[in-house]
């Protein structure tokens, strides 16, 4: 995000006249609303905001936000965004991508925007399936996913978007889901982070991967199967009856019971968003034995790419004039007399 003068807008100001073309019931609607609702809270200026996307269902997103929008090509949105940011670092740039767009065809670019730390918000909608091409398994599909291209079940091991982003050097890693009431908070935190902020948003594909995330989103199981990371607070779940602790013998995480609210006694970890090692463990916790870690898992800013690069440019320009005639006449020259 940028230090721009806050602008007063409402949700309506961020809606376009375009008819939204996602399938009825698609999780994208909820994410769109959450973003449109959050942008006014950020004081964002539609004229200074750019949404950049690749290809896929999620990548239609920019057409529905009343700001600048660039629907580019499959997987390459991070590279377009980097060019936009270098040309005008004042722009507030958001990337919208999906699991196929961001981690399959565009994995390379996602890695590089994260390691460079270009100051953008990257929202990866993970529905664990290729939706727009009619339901093939994706790089995040779980092993054994039945699809038109894996009739006997997929054998690929899935990629973990947050682990990938951390491994690529990302300095802000967060996770949420389409219908979460806390999605807006996570987006706000991402926007507040100076640098590349990566947010994985689990998103329900109503047609090809319906209710895929119900094992931790569905109301009856949500409490037991979601642990929300909040800076400075213990990693508790199950209405405070369980927590995440460090097994000091194996140096791995473990689930512990919390009796009578004595989480300290149970050794529950107090979440520290700058602890990279714990962040790695949280995003890699196998679901089932562990709950799904959600919220702002890691947030530890460092200087941005465009700041460093453009700063160097400024230094190189200092005290020099752009005299083209002089440049052309540089080096070893000779004169042919008239």
């Amino acid at each position: 995000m940028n230090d721009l003068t806050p602008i007063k807008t409402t949700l309506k100001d961020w809606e376009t006249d375009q008819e939204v073309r996602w399938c009825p019931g698609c999780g994208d609607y909820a994410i769109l609303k959450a973003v449109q609702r959050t942008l006014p809270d950020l004081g964002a200026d539609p004229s200074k905001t750019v949404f950049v996307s690749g290809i896929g269902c999620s990548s239609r997103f920019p057409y529905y936000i009343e700001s600048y929008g660039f629907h580019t090509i499959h997987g390459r949105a991070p590279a377009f965004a980097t060019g936009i940011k270098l040309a005008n670092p004042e722009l507030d740039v958001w990337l919208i991508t999906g699991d196929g767009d961001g981690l399959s065809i565009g994995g390379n670019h996602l890695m590089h925007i994260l390691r460079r730390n270009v100051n953008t918000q990257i929202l990866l909608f993970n529905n664990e399936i290729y939706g727009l091409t009619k339901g093939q398994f994706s790089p995040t599909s779980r092993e054994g996913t039945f699809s038109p291209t894996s009739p006997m079940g997929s054998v690929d091991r899935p990629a973990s978007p947050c682990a990938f982003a951390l491994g690529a050097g990302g300095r802000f890693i967060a996770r949420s889901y389409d219908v979460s009431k806390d999605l807006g908070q996570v987006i706000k935190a991402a926007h507040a982070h100076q640098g590349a902020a990566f947010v994985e948003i689990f998103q329900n594909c109503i047609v090809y991967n319906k209710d895929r995330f119900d094992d931790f989103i569905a109301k009856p199981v949500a409490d037991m199967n979601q642990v929300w990371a909040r800076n400075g607070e213990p990693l508790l779940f199950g209405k405070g009856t369980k927590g995440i602790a460090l097994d000091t013998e194996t140096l791995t995480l473990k689930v512990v019971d919390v009796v009578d609210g004595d989480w300290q006694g149970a050794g529950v970890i107090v979440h520290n968003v700058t602890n990279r090692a714990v962040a790695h463990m949280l995003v890699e916790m196998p679901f089932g034995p562990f709950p799904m870690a959600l919220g702002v898992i890691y947030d530890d800013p460092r200087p941005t790419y465009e700041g460093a690069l453009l700063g160097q440019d400024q230094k190189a320009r200092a005290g020099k004039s752009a005299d083209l005639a002089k440049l052309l006449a540089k080096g070893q020259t000779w004169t042919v007399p008239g």
Partner: protein
Amino acid sequence: MATAVFEGPEGLTGGKENPATPDAVVVRFAGDSGDGMQLTGGQFTLSTALAGNDLATFPDFPAEIRAPQGTLFGVSAFQINFGSTDIETAGDQPDVLIAMNPAALKVNLDALKPGGLIIADSGEFNKRNLEKAKYTVNPLEDGSLHKWQLMGFDISALTLEAVKPFGLGNKEALRCKNMWTLGLALWMFDRERGPLIDWLRTKFAKNSTLADANIAALNAGHAYGETAELSGPLRQVHIAAVASEPGLYRTVTGAESISYGLVAGAQLAELPLFFGGYPITPASSILHNLVKLKEFGVTTFQAEDEIAAIASAIGASYAGHLGVTSSSGPGIALKTEAIGLAVMTELPLVIVNSQRGGPSTGLPTKTEQSDLYQAVYGRNGDTPLPVISARSPSDAFDCAIEACRLATQYMTPVMLLTDGYIANAAEPWKVPDPATYLPFPATFLEEPNGPDGTLLPFARNERGARPWIKAGTPGLMHRIGGIEKNPTTGAIDYSPASHQTMTDLRRAKIDGIAKNIPQQDVALGETSGKLVLVGWGSTFGPIHQAVRRARRRGLDVSHVHVRYIWPMPENLGDLLRGYDRVLVPEMNTGQFKTVLRDQFLINARPLNKTSGQPFTIAEIEAAIEEILAA
């Protein structure tokens, strides 16, 4: 003019009584890729330019950085043709071959003109090196070189002797061999050593011992020439300065002139320049040059791959910079989808393709013109864009400016074709005055352009170009993308009528460029006649010289050289129909020939070469004779 002037006794090795004053000389320096031949050639080029000769060079080096020593495939060569008349090619056949080892002799001997002079470092013709070059007997001793004049002396030993006082290790001392050789060459052609000594002092500013050693080697080579003249057949040759247009001159390579041209183009468009690039031979040198020109409002970005390089440039154009990317064939292939997006979103972009031999990785360091189909036809969908081609290093400056003009005036990606030869070759360049170029300031939309304050991002001006709306402009929020759009509102619309209309509009815009480019001229000869040679790109030199020679002999042949490959100048078809025969020499299997046939239904005939080497004048001359004799 003639390139080969020395013949036997009248030539370089004639008696002292006959001082040679030829029009032009071709010299080839050849050695191991680690011998510093490109550096030697480059410095000899500078001294040639400073002596006021016209010149053309041809650096020819292996793709390997340090190929195994002494091997045939590790030979690196630098050829220069210089003279007192106009020089248009690097010369067909060298008059002088300087061979630093047996492999260099073997690889380059065939090219040497009969009667030409071989200067060989006999110290390197030992058993091991002879074996590596697959010689069973030492060619310096078995009389097999009798067709040529041979001077073998132990340059290695002479260099070691010369640099002895500086206490260098053997390896470092032998590195000075190229300066010894350069010293000899400077003596042979009556050149000043001063500028070279200055250059060595700057180059080795941090190590004065190395500077002194190299200067000593240079001086020793020079002194050796004087002594050899006294005792042997070698003698000095003086080439008079060429009669050139008065003015300030410098040497320039294509990579330099393109970089300067892009900077000039951005200045004329009054835009900051954004360059997204990825390392690839032979295009990288443009990025190397531009990274040093930040004070001209240049931002450079070394991307993670070719796709990101072009994508970042398109992103920068969207945000109001002039986006530029460059590559060579395989990299351009990777960029293709993004080029389509730039066509679809109608954003300005310059794509420089330094062509090299293909397909696939092909010949990374050799030249070819085989990406013309890729430039004109090589995209999915009906995706037209302007294609222009540079004929020489100095012409590349103007072409780069023209690419910037078309990109910004027509809101389109533009492909600028050069090749490995233009990128690396040097020629004298009359330094242009930037003030003489007509500015073409880019304009950005600042206010809504539709009825009732609406925004129409794809409304068109008289050129068919849409407005450039810089992301971040207050109140002009809009969305663009690769999906087909409504011709009026620019909103997503893939209805049949919209796609038909938009396809037609995109095509008409590019076709319309023909009205805004110069008419095709005749480079040499008449506007009609028996035969015309139609060239494009770096074949200008050999075609021009071949046509000039043929015309001197009374043959009815003309030369037309096309800069605008797509769209073509409006008069080109009629012009070509004025000749009985049309011959298209090009370094591919006939790509421009096909486009000419396609556009004008004329019987254009091919003359093709795909050896990774430029045409020789003689090859084209022979083709002219054959076709006119038929």
